[in-house]
């Protein structure tokens, strides 16, 4: 399978999902025009990765790291990100414990709070990383 890359636009995030390194990263602003299509591609990619790599025991030796570096996320995007993380966290049944890093601008309490709400809903600990 191929890695997934989508460049950032004014209102759609940059997405870099690598099946080689196991690094999945979203950055920028997330209110894509067609949110279901944008995140649908990412969710489909994760399901394919699960089938071809995780299920087959061929995941990257460095493990799985998820970096969420969003400056803004609309509510529909948040729900799709929840679904993506839910898929990744479920890989614990294969022995993968992902690292989820939630970046936020220092002073942006709302973005930090969004991460804590997602972590609470997923019942999975995130690492919170303030950006200067």
């Amino acid at each position, binding site marked *: 399978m191929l890695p997934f890359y989508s460049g950032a636009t004014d209102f759609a995030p940059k997405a870099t999902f690598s099946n080689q390194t196991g690094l999945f990263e979203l950055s920028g602003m997330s209110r894509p*025009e067609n949110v279901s299509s944008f995140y649908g591609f990412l969710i489909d990619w994760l399901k394919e990765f699960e089938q071809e790599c995780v299920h087959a025991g061929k995941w990257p030796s460095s493990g799985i790291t998820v970096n969420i570096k969003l400056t803004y996320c*609309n509510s529909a995007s948040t729900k799709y990100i929840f*679904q993506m993380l839910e898929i990744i966290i479920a890989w614990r049944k294969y022995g993968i414990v992902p690292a989820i890093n939630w970046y936020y601008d220092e002073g942006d309490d*709302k*973005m930090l*709070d969004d991460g804590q709400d997602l972590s609470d*809903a997923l019942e999975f600990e995130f690492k919170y990383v303030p950006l200067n």
Partner: protein
Amino acid sequence: MNDWPEYVKLRIPAVSDNTNHLERYTLLDHSGIIRYETIGELIHTFKHQVHGKELQTGTSKKILLVMIEMLENIMKHSECCNGNNPEPSNGYLPVFSIRKDDNQFVIQSSNPIKKQSIPVFKNKLEYLNTLDPQGLKDFYKETITNGEFTNRGGAGLGLIEMAKISGNKIVYDFKPIDDHCELFSMVITIEETSVNL
């Protein structure tokens, strides 16, 4: 500041007696159909407008978040005034504004919506206004985990998000326009030093 049409004037709740920083100005005042591109233009205008206003990052971010959710809400429920209906509900176009009113920001929208959409809105708004901050967090968690999306692509989180950010009750009103549409007006207030999340 432009005068709002009489039909969108709602009672704005007094939030505080603190009059140390009396200040009134308009940040945004838009009237017209809301499309995806319109929201982008309004975001840029908002960012330009807050530049130099000495707003705390947290406050301007909260206003921006409420603004986008409110505008996306209007966009998703625009059947009464979109290209399929050249006579937009007897001239009732969507109206949106953000203004500073003493120590609070008042974010207000008004737009025609289909009558059949009203019960969902009304029930949710009534329920949200009964919840305290922990209740809002619990409802948010319940909604984000339910896996449901509306046929308009909505996550069901927008109104909850706005209520969480504001920390104040949402003021709203429905007024009949014609046989098919009603005018839905909503006011969200954000205190300048609000720490509600």
